[in-house]
């Protein structure tokens, strides 16, 4: 964009102005996102560690996530593909809201923010659906040694679905990491939808029209894109590899 052209990089460090040409709020949002990205990075790296350790017994995602709503067929990765599409789509509508804000186009901002919220809500709902099927499991189940509290021994039985201790898909750590990482990401999406909703109400009230700029849209946009960014990595490391 044009504003960087007239920027004198050397004079910027002489004091009296922000050398980054970023407002305080936006910079703090970026710093928060870096720290949050470090958290997710740590989680995914520890996931990689455990996966390497149990490389021989780690289940394949194509064999675990095979369901699709209303269709009784074996469709590996189809639903998670749809979820990814929904999230990328809502990321696009978000950036279009930011762009509309740069033109002070209140109607555009309202419309695109609305679709962003719809996309986010659809994604959270899809994740709930996926968790439900993961926890309930398949009809066949798999033979597992389940700890019996009463006798204090492992009892062999056919086990369906997943808990933190046992799951029918493979090592217990598989379900642990699935719940923790997609849960942590899902909570981020949920908070993102809530924050988007608050900003959306402010747009309706005309708060930013009065303020003279729609920077707030850009700030929540940064958070929302970050959520999409994390999902890109979760999608690769959980479902594809």
């Amino acid at each position, binding site marked *: 964009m044009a504003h960087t052209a007239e920027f004198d990089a050397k004079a910027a460090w002489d004091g009296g102005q922000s050398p980054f*040409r970023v407002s305080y709020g936006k910079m703090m949002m970026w710093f928060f996102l870096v720290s949050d990205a470090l958290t997710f990075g740590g989680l995914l790296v520890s996931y990689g560690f455990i996966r390497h350790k149990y490389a021989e017994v780690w289940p394949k995602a194509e064999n675990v996530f095979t369901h699709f709503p209303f269709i009784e067929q074996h469709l590996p990765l189809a639903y998670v593909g749809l979820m990814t599409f929904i999230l990328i789509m809502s990321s696009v509508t978000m950036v279009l809201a930011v762009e509309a804000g740069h033109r002070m186009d209140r109607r555009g901002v309202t419309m695109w923010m609305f679709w962003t919220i719809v996309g986010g809500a659809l994604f959270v709902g899809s994740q709930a659906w996926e968790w439900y099927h993961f926890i309930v499991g398949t009809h066949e189940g798999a033979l597992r040694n389940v700890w019996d509290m009463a006798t204090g021994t492992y009892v062999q039985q056919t086990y369906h679905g997943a808990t933190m201790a046992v799951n029918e898909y493979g090592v217990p750590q598989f379900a642990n990491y699935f719940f923790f990482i997609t849960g942590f990401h899902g909570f981020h999406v949920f908070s993102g939808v809530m924050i988007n909703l608050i900003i959306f109400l402010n747009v309706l009230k005309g708060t930013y029209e009065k303020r003279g700029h729609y920077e707030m849209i850009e700030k929540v946009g940064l958070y929302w894109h970050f959520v999409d960014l994390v999902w*890109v990595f979760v999608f690769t490391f959980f479902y594809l590899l």
Partner: protein
Amino acid sequence: MSEFHDDYPSYETMYNHSEEEGKKARKVLWKVFWVMLFITIFELIVGSMAPSHGWSGTLGLKVLFIGLTVVKAAAIVLWFMHLGHETKFFKYIILLPYITFILYAVFIILVEGVYSGYPRNMTRVDKIFIDQQEKLKAGHHGGGGAAHEAEAPHGEEHH
């Protein structure tokens, strides 16, 4: 209406743009979207074809997926989050610490992950699971290996 009390340029003079500039910006954004959608669909097709072709878990496939993921991540950060439009200093202050840390973490975890997978480094938790797997192998599943057992409930539909 800037929050700054110096002569720092306000948000609207820095970022607001005209109709034509907006049109150009939107064109770029939609292009980024189509590229990302194409990459995702390509990944899904390759991902669901991989098992029947025996590519699953091969190094080439892993590198391909991770490479495409980094491309998508870069597209999001540079165009959707507008980091490409910020000043050079700001780009570095956001990206350098993060990339440095993550490269180190990935390196150390690959080394340690392989090392901790050796049988002599297994902890008590590992032995319990391995015992389970051994018992299952010896008992009900008649010769089915541990890796096979993980896939067992779904294996039949797949072939």
